């Protein structure tokens, strides 16, 4: 840590302002391939980022490994000749409210325990489907973040995380079925083998038979995994303050307007206890918060980092994140969709003809900014007269997230976490086009 102060001091000699951000992590992963233990990994990483204001312009550089802090400074100075105008100030010293993101129990879990968990999950699932081949990964890790800037701002936190996931493949004749689920939390005790096994077994049950669907517009129930796989990417990009500022977001100018169904509530919450997306302060030292994005269908807020907020004449919302080690940019922490009052069973019973969608492939391709989505239904089931009749194949769905969420038929009464950063109920929607073979 002394080294980071040294970088800051050196930077102050050549620049008006400076910020040093340092992140390190140690992750142990146990991987099973084709239901057999295959690989054990230990990954240690650490990296530093330096941001300076020099001659009124921003310079930025990152370095990892070696003792190359002089190189870090030289690179930041070089880029500052061309960088954008420094239009904001680094946050000064303050107390951060604690957010629960570290569980010391993470240290107690050894590799043998992780192997045991993986084996247990595979046994549970194989008991239900003997011919399934499972890829399982069990990961545990700790990471730490340290930040210091020339305005006296300073922050440090440590985080733990634990992940258990399964991806299963069943091949019958020329048919390939993919099933899977995963859970993650900062607290290892939150991760239950049973919950994942039950979810996967339910998928296998639903997919036992195949069903035919024709090309038309149908009602669709998106399961929480379905919501994650197709509806979230367009929303996450549209609520970014950057996309709003440049006018590339369809939500520009819609603050306070009714854009979504009255039943819909969406917020970003970086303070969820033991959420893997949680943090006490963002990657620029701005305190985290729970930020409503959609309240009863009205657009209420966008996500901002320091620089974008300054350009937009507003304040950072504490969403400056450094994805992949790059410079900070507004991004979600954990997205949460509020629960409604309709049970999943009621949704299914209500459909004369429709689909339940769990996993869509290719949904991230296409005009996401405009809210369009389209993809192949990798895992989805046909409903006829209120009953699930089987899995659909060779089927694509397409729609626009703003049209689909303008009027939602029903919102599920139970929520679950998907991938550790989205909590959502089932969403029962209309107006989705279905296209299939032979039509």
């Amino acid at each position: 840590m002394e080294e980071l102060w040294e970088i800051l001091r050196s930077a102050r000699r050549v620049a008006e302002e400076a910020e040093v951000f340092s992140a390190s992590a140690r992750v142990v992963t146990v991987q099973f391939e084709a239901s057999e233990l295959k690989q054990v990994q230990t990954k240690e990483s650490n990296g530093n980022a330096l941001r300076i204001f020099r001659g009124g312009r921003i310079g930025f550089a990152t370095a990892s490994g070696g003792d190359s802090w002089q190189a870090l400074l030289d690179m930041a100075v070089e880029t500052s000749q061309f960088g954008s105008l420094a239009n904001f100030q680094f946050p000064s010293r303050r107390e951060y409210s604690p957010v629960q993101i570290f569980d010391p129990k993470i240290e107690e879990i050894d590799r043998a325990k992780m192997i045991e968990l993986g084996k247990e999950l595979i046994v549970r699932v194989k008991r239900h489907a003997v011919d399934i081949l499972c890829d399982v990964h069990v990961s545990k890790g700790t990471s730490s973040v340290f930040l210091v800037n020339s305005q006296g701002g300073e922050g440090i936190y440590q985080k733990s995380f634990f992940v258990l996931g399964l991806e299963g493949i069943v091949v019958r004749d020329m048919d390939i079925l993919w099933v899977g689920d995963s859970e993650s939390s900062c607290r290892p005790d939150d991760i239950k083998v049973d919950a994942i096994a039950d979810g996967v077994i339910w998928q296998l049950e639903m997919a036992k038979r195949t069903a035919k669907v024709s090309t038309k517009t149908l009602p669709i129930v998106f399961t929480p995994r379905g919501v994650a796989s197709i509806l979230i990417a367009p929303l996450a990009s549209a609520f970014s303050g950057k996309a709003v500022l440049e006018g590339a977001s369809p939500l520009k100018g819609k603050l306070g307007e009714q854009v979504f169904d009255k039943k819909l509530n969406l917020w970003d919450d970086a303070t969820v206890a033991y959420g893997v997306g949680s943090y006490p302060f963002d990657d620029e030292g701005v305190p985290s918060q729970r930020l409503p994005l959609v309240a009863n269908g009205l657009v209420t807020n966008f996500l901002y980092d320091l620089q974008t907020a300054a350009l937009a004449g507003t304040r950072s919302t504490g969403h400056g994140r450094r994805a992949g080690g790059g410079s900070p940019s507004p991004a979600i922490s954990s997205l949460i969709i509020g629960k409604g009052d309709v049970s999943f069973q009621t949704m299914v019973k209500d459909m004369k003809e429709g689909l339940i969608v769990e996993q869509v492939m290719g949904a991230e391709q296409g005009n996401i900014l405009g809210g369009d989505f389209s993809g192949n239904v990798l895992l989805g089931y046909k409903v006829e007269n209120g009953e699930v009749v089987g899995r659909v194949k060779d089927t694509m769905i397409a729609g626009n997230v703003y049209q689909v969420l303008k009027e939602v038929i029903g919102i599920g009464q139970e929520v679950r976490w998907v991938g550790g950063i989205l909590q959502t109920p089932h969403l029962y929607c209309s107006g989705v086009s279905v296209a299939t073979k032979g039509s």
Partner: protein
Amino acid sequence: MPLFMIEATIRGMRDLITEALKNHDAECIEIRFEETEATSITYRGDRLEEISRARSCGGNIRALVKGSWGFVSFNRPDRLREKVALAVAEARLASKEPLQLFPIEPVADKVVPQLRKDATTVPLAVKKRLLDEYNAIILSSPKIQSSRINYRDARKQIIFANSEGSYIEQTKVDLSLRLTAIARENGEVQQAGLSLGSNGEFSIVEGLHDKAKDLARRAAALLSAPQVKGGEYTVVLNPVLAGVFAHEAFGHLSEADHVYQNEKLRQIMVLGRRFGGKYLNIVDDPTMPNLRGSYKYDDEGTPARKTYLIREGILVGRLHSRETAAKMGEKATGNARAVNYLFPPIVRMSNTLIEPGSTSFEEMLADVEEGIYAKDWYGGTTALEMFTFSAGEAYMIRRGKLGELLRPTVLSGNVFTTLQNIDAIGNDLEVNQGGGCGKADQYPLPVSNGSPHIRIRHCVVGGR
């Protein structure tokens, strides 16, 4: 200068590694060291969003004990012997039956790219001036709301050594550029993109002014274009999109790590099985000169070679690592690649191509009553059997002629039927070097795809 390189100069890197690898109880141990220097420039609209430099040093150790692997990655190269011991201990936790990797002759070599204009030596000011010009062209076009420009170049020096005696130093340079024009009208947002890449040759991103102009025009035109009606169509793919199709629809299924432990998939993917018509030839070839997916040795030290995947419609080969080749009783093909030191090598494509045939583009369109001409790409993905890929630009084909412009279109298919449904292969091969390939969290790996125009019957197209 990073710590371990200093130590290396004093003691000799090779000696350091040899010593660390000595006397461990493992069938094979590999060490990789990597140093990367990268430059990124990003524009968002008229704002230069980021200009940054990055430098990274790191390495990893992979050990094989009785058929299972231990893997340790690190930024600090100190206490190397301890790290090797950890990897061996990890592998032992999982160990099963002994496995003999496909034998590769140990080699000592040094590989340096030959570039006319190396992107990593071009001054920042020159790069910025060029991108400024493209951005100005895009932003001054009618109906354009914003733009995105993502430029990145990186020079990577990799040292690979294994306990069998190989010691290979490779320098790799990579460059990628994506230009995006974003048009907006009445709350509707549409975008058009152009992706380019090279093995570090800077001239490939010069002189794109006309293309930038065309890009902006396309984005604006999409605002008034209709969405295609979903359903089954005859589609003609342009070479760029057909290359993506070859990569997604068949390339990934040819990666042996998907099939080697799955008895049923092995039966489906049995060599000698017919997958397409007799004019269909698909190859993967890292030995093609100066492409993004080209290399001399893979990340297990196996020499690169050309592999026919499909020859005259028949499955004749697949892509292997040393492990998958040994387990399937086939030859290693030099396709074990790691995106960086944080990951172990896995089976990947390099330059994947559909070889050209004899049909002209006009002949291909001529007998299509109603269909879709799909061009360029947004992306593609696969789940082995099912795949999707998306066109950045599409047109209706009516009575053999190109019709109206359509909104971006996602196409989907089942590999076992779709390859059979290719009924025409063009005479106009083109190789596309944009984008990057992702697999098992390893993204973006430099690859290239190529194809002539191709025509596919009964392709499912998503739409409203």
